[in-house]
């Protein structure tokens, strides 16, 4: 533990995380005061079931933001994959072992196309992924306009059931973040994302294969999106071209709250995890408090501003 604290202190992240943790604590206290049903096993196990989709897309978005990019096609892609999985399993429910890996490959592949287009056409990722979002959504609609398809009940159980009293989604989420965290901090390839995001020119001069790293980051974003889509389809039982659309903007807030800066090169998945936790628990609290979505929007906007305020001290801007 002290080692972690030391690392955090060295990376000057401790005070920032402290703010997020403090906010978390405040929210939990407020929730407990509002309702005696807030701090219950049932509520928190629901919370973990709810967090998994947002968590995975935010994890994916962390990679693209770390290299100084952004992926606005996440929502359309998530919808497309739910459509693929539900349609495929509707046709052959026994072939889960084919559907799942193919969905992952599809996600990573489309992510890689995002990266490749951005790198080789030298177009701002904002524009590339916006265009790709349109293309993916259109292609999905060609295949299926209305929600449909189905998944076997075992699949649904993954999204809702517990293992040893803890939701399966919680294991999946923690595992995904842990793997991503170790990969980013402790492997050469992972560190390269920081090099590319920190200073692309310097990275190139240091022999970092900048283009490949960028494509990899987008491929990972696509891959994480496919995982999120798998949980989404498990949760809803159907493929829906539109279901992912709100995720595009939703995926950005936790990343920013977690201290990864839009300019790239700084931040990490631990912060994003805290960000996801904060956003999810806050939504839960607002529901408990009976706050209408109008005010939830205002709160969302304020969270972004507060988050940026926390990390404002960095000279390159949030």
């Amino acid at each position, binding site marked *: 533990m002290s080692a972690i604290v030391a690392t955090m202190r060295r990376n000057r992240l401790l005070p920032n995380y402290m703010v997020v943790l403090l906010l978390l604590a405040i929210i939990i206290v407020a929730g407990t005061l509002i*309702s005696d*049903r*807030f701090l*219950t096993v*049932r*509520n928190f196990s*629901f919370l973990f*079931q*709810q967090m998994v*989709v947002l968590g995975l897309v935010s994890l994916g978005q962390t990679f693209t933001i770390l290299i100084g990019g952004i992926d606005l096609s996440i929502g359309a892609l998530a919808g497309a994959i739910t459509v693929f999985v539900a349609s495929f399993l509707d046709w052959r429910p026994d072939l889960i072992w084919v559907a799942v890996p193919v969905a992952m490959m599809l996600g990573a592949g489309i992510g890689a196309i995002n990266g490749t287009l951005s790198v080789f056409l030298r177009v701002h990722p904002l524009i590339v992924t916006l265009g790709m979002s349109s293309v993916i959504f259109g292609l999905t*609609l060609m295949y*299926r*306009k*209305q*929600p*449909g398809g189905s998944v076997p009940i075992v699949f*649904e159980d993954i*999204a*809702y059931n517990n293992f040893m009293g803890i939701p399966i989604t919680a294991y999946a989420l923690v595992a995904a973040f842990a793997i991503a965290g170790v990969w980013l901090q402790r492997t050469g390839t992972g560190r390269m994302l920081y090099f590319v995001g920190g200073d692309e020119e310097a990275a190139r001069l240091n022999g970092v294969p900048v283009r490949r790293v960028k494509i990899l980051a987008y491929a990972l974003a696509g891959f994480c999106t496919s995982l999120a889509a798998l949980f*989404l389809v498990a*949760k*809803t*039982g*159907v493929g*829906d*071209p*539109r*279901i992912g659309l*709100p*995720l595009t903007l939703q995926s950005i807030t936790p990343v920013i709250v977690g201290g990864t800066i839009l300019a790239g090169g700084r931040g990490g998945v631990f912060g994003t995890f805290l960000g996801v936790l904060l956003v999810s628990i806050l*939504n*839960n609290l607002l*529901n*408990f408090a*009976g706050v*209408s*979505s*109008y005010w939830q929007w205002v709160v969302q906007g304020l969270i972004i501003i507060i988050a940026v305020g926390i990390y404002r001290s960095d000279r390159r801007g949030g």
Partner: protein
Amino acid sequence: MNSIRHKTKAVFAAGIAGVLVAGVLAVVPASAQDAGRKGYEGVPRTWLWNPNFNEMVDTAKWKKEGPYTIGFSNASISNAWRVAFQHGILWSAGQNSDQIERFLVTDANDDPAKQISDIQDLISQGVDLLLIAPATEEALDSVVGRAMRQGIPVVMVDRKVSSPENYITFVTASDTVVGRMEAQWMAEYLNGEGDIVMLPGIAGASPAEIRIKANKEVFSKYPGINVLEMQYTDWNPATGKATMAALIQKYGDKIDGVLADSALQGYGAIEAYLDAGYGKGEIPPMTGGDVARMYQLAHEYDVPMMGIDYPTSMGITGVETALDVLNGVPVPSRVEVNMQIVTSPDAETASVKADRYLLDHVSMDDPGDLSPSNGLPEGYNPATFDPEYPK
């Protein structure tokens, strides 16, 4: 106000003993009671003309001692229709505060994923019953089924989820009826011959797709009706107007009729005609209900039209049905609320007779996006309406 409850009850009672229907209605003359309850008179034709008996659901096993905690999960309150709908529900909850201790409300911004979380959060808060207006039929099916299996009764309102075993009853009006009426009226008004354009709502949204299907079903019987083109309009007036403007340029006077599935794009289409230089009496027949502006424009420019509102008043019925379930009163497996057919004067056809003409339904002073079939007290103004209800 009690009359509302009574009348609804009357409808349900009628369902239990179909043969007594006429008698009950005679006791409760609808028109006399419904001052201020626009768009809600009579019982639905779909029920009256349905030769089958209602399938009743025994709710004894959900019977519970009050007062109750009811959770209402709304798909969204992001447009005027959904706001009026939610107002009806909150108002009705307030009317029944003797039975309802807490009435918890969430809205999901049309995001099915958020609605799943919302429903779970309501369950966490210990609701006795869930009243749900789902964002989509399919995506919410699984979580709603899980709620039922946990012993929480679910009443669907406005839209349902795909599996009937996942809820007790469904309070609604029928998109199929809307679609059929529109198409039937158009076909008959054109005497079975003509080129029309279709302006449906959002691609993939179930009300839009059901209405398209019903439209096509009717047109299949009229070989003389030729659909020139179909373009989605996102139920957005600006998109409706721009789309119609382009179609006018493409086909000009070739268009004999415009089949809009709602007034949201429908009035945009009328405006596109006006911008293109068409004057009073020159605009082809159109369909579309839900908001006042279309009726007003149709009146002003003599557009032959037929509109049928998808009534926001179904929310009120929804709350009452929910209480019936908790009281152990048997309910029909599908509760339909009535819809009014509104036409221009002299635009009635053989099968589609007007319940009202345009200016009986709206006044020219009504706000353009008011939902006329709201079932709320006279003088309802969505901008200022703030009903008391047990929070």
